[in-house]
């Protein structure tokens, strides 16, 4: 009987499957470790490469017709090394892995700057309608009129909500939208033979802003923040000049504060011959209440996967349409949808020369993130103009409720300057005395069943904690989070040493990121199970 041997101890003392000794905690009578390494519903899962097999498959396919191949002698002979699973094993592998994740469906996910709001399942259902999910981007346009209609209607919503005259739909995410906007600015400058290349970016900006500007050949200069956490107006105005191509500004900014001077800034930048790029990642705070177009913005990307509820999917996909001012509109990328006598058509390579002579070209193959467009429109239609305004109000209300409920314990750098917008910013100064940090606090919140806030961003605040609840959290949830944050902070000040090693109850304890980076193991190098 082979099995028991396979599973039995390698040495005298019993070992479990993952090689750890199975101790019994004496006294309590509690088993601290298990044979399998599982703990009831907290299940360990081996790698596909450890369990799967090259001869295993979870699909059945019709037989291959016998015809002489036409691969020109380029057939792939050597083993590829792709293990497979039967269908039941596949379902289980991924279901077990999924349970090691936290998600918005499980609880509040207050990542500042990320707008982790509820993802309605109606959106998922609509995106899966064959009429949207099962059409090819290069089908004759007569066969996809409904798809072009959807893009056109969504574009109309975006323009009306932002008060801007044009929108480029194809960018694939926020950073890609930034790129689209900055390229439009480059194109506009080139069109008038203007060589200015400096882009001013606040220190507090998200990393994608400077990275994007550099990506399309601009020179990045930082502008400082003032004591109130806003752009230092004087510094900025002072820096404006013939070499300044654009200002990239985030509003509400990454400290969760509204930039009251944006209109003033825009006017000054325009007067100095530059353009204003607005990072719209925080649009959720003002949607329906403020139109960026009224603040003199020339370009702003909108993260449909933030403000408009398309799911983050563990890192994407997103969608980052960019609204454009009249000054930049002519340079917008192809393709775009326009109305015709009989319906709608795509302006693509074939007619671009006449229909969009100044377009700077393509941002991407095909037409953008259709799957996200459907979800976003489904969300917008559900909320409507009235509901979207309420979204902004509730998002801001929730954030201020958290700020007001914690600022007596947590250091709140800018609380004195008045209300915040959709996110509340704290720092770990109040812990400096006990040698605990933002990181320790974040990990303690994991044990409490919450996803931590955004930590150590924005960089302008040391030990920053940026809490964005979004409008889809109930008061009861906020009260529980506030209670837990107060409890943890109080305990940390009272008994610091107990709090250096959290989390204790998660699938893993703190992970060694230094080792991961020092000798990177980025893909499975072992051999397959079978």
């Amino acid at each position: 009987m082979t099995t028991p041997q396979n599973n039995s101890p390698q040495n005298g003392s019993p070992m479990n499957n993952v090689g750890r000794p199975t101790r019994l905690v004496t006294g309590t009578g509690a088993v601290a470790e298990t044979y399998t390494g599982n703990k009831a519903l907290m299940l360990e899962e081996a790698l596909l490469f450890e369990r799967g097999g090259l001869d295993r498959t979870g699909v059945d396919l019709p037989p291959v017709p016998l015809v002489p191949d036409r691969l020109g002698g380029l057939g792939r002979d050597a083993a590829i090394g792709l293990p497979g699973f039967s269908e039941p094993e596949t379902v289980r592998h991924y279901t077990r892995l999924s349970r090691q994740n936290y998600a918005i469906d499980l609880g509040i996910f207050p990542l500042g700057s990320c707008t982790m709001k509820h993802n309605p399942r109606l959106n998922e259902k609509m995106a899966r309608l064959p009429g949207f999910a099962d059409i090819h981007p290069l089908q004759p346009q007569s066969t996809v009129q409904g798809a072009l209609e959807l893009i056109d209607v969504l574009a109309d919503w975006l323009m009306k909500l932002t008060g801007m005259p044009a929108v480029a739909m194809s960018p694939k995410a926020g950073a890609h939208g930034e790129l689209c906007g900055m390229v439009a600015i480059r194109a506009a400058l080139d069109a008038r033979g203007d060589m200015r290349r400096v882009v001013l970016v606040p220190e507090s900006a998200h990393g994608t802003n400077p990275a994007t500007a550099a990506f399309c050949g601009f020179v990045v200069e930082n502008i400082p923040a003032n004591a109130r956490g806003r752009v230092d107006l004087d510094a900025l105005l002072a820096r404006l000049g013939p070499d300044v191509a654009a200002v990239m500004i985030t509003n509400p900014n990454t400290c969760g504060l509204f930039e009251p001077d944006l209109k003033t800034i825009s006017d000054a930048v325009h007067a100095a011959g530059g353009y204003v790029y607005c990072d719209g990642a925080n649009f959720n705070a003002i949607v329906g209440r403020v139109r960026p177009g009224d603040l003199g913005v020339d370009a702003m990307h909108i993260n449909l996967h933030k403000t408009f509820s398309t799911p983050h999917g563990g890192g994407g996909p997103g969608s980052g349409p960019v609204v454009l001012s009249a000054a930049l509109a002519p340079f917008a990328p192809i393709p775009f949808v326009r109305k015709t006598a009989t319906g709608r058509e795509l302006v693509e390579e074939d007619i671009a020369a006449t229909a969009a002579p100044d377009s700077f070209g393509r941002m991407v193959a095909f037409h953008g993130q259709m799957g996200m467009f459907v979800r976003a429109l489904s969300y917008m239609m559900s909320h409507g103009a009235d509901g979207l305004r309420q979204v902004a109000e509730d998002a801001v209300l929730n954030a201020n409720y958290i700020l007001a409920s914690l600022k007596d314990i947590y250091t709140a750098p800018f609380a004195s300057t008045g209300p915040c917008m959709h996110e509340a910013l704290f720092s770990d100064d109040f812990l400096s005395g006990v040698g605990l940090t933002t990181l320790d606090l974040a990990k303690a919140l994991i044990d409490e069943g919450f996803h931590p806030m955004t930590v150590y961003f924005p960089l302008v605040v040391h030990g920053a904690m940026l809490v964005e609840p979004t409008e889809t959290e109930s008061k009861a949830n906020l009260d529980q989070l506030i209670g837990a944050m107060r409890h943890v902070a109080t305990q940390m000040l009272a008994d610091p040493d107990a709090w250096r090693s959290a989390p204790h109850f998660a699938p893993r304890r703190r992970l060694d990121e230094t080792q991961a980076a020092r000798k990177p193991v980025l893909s499975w190098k072992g051999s397959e199970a079978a």
Partner: protein
Amino acid sequence: MRYLPLSTADRTAMLATIGAASIDDLFSDVPAEAVLPGPIAGLPNHASEMAVERALVKMAGKNATASTSPFFVGCGAYKHHVPATVDMVIQRGEFLTAYTPYQPEIAQGTLQVLFEFQSQVARLTGMEVANASMYDGSTAMTEAVFMARRITRKPKCLVSAGVHPHYTSVLKTLTRFTGDVVEAGVPKFTQGAPGDDLSSLIASIDGDTSCVVVQNPNLFGHIADLSPLADACHAAGALLIVVVTEIVSLGAIKSPGEMGADIVVGEGQSLGAGLTFGGPYLGLFACRDKHVRQMPGRLCGETVDASGKRGFVLTLSTREQHIRREKATSNICTNSGLIALAFSVHLTLLGEKGLRHLAALNHARAVQLAERLGRMPGVTLLNGAFFNEFTLDLGREARPVVRKLAEKGVLGGVSLGRLWPSEKALTNGMIVAVTETATDEDFDAFEDALDEVMAK
């Protein structure tokens, strides 16, 4: 509003806690001229789930779907059967509604999936390392060219005429402003090897060349041995970037890695994603270990936790924008996580055995149809070697033919007049893709319809 948990009573209580008289007080920073008095005009108010569903179902109904028509459209997006299990997995809330795994202790699910995905992509492409995904194939290609420039510190990039024209124009959009020099060829209708001429490509490699970009199978479906090209690149200190738009082909033909590629970028849509009118798709990016620190995008790596258990984290983030800002290898942040998961699930279901079967099936079916259509009067099959896609010379402008086929309910392929309008020499070309989903009845319907259209 069904998505908003706060009741009016909650709002009042919370304003009291905050010490604000009204919600407007919280927006006091907004300059008067920008304050909107009420809901934005010209947009409808909130609607029931029923009403939204009715409206969107109506729109969706105006499109002809791939599954309900004989379908042969490809050129960078392919209709493959996606097992029901894939959609079930990506709809798990724990995957669907999680963010980027910034807190690894409660994101091991996403992280292990990424590690497995990276491993699968590396093996499939024949490379040593792959990242956690890019937006799509076209943006991945542009990133590859920039990466080559960073590595070689040379300005010139040669793009084969066989590369998908959308991909090339995405590259051109950005290189206009970065000082990179792009030399892209124009495709030829060479009988037996439509697309580009690798020998002339080799000839144009010089000391300024940072990389050569070639697609295999190319836009026209032609497949070539890239080894000579790889040797030529390496001899000149340039990198070979290989683009793969039909990833299933790697279950049947030699991997770019085996042919000497330095960077492989691809479109992963064929596995797991479905057509969805062009997006969201999946950018694949793989390279050699030695270049990993110049790579764009996220990477997941193995490590251990405080109690010694294996775990996974995002790593080498000093390459990325949130750390390096203007010096980052790329500006990408959100990528295609969920589509990478779908890809990985589909590939796990297939396994090596299933992938090879699927690829063989695609090829055999394509050969059957290619030879069948190639025998039609007035139709010439241009391809010698191909995988599941081939180009026909119809001897007349192809675009109207494609439209007429659609009127007959057959989605028959892509006309080069649409993809390469500038090249009149190509207007008679139609590119036809065949996958496992096409039945014999579909073949018959296609041939009959084409016959009728050509007869006129």
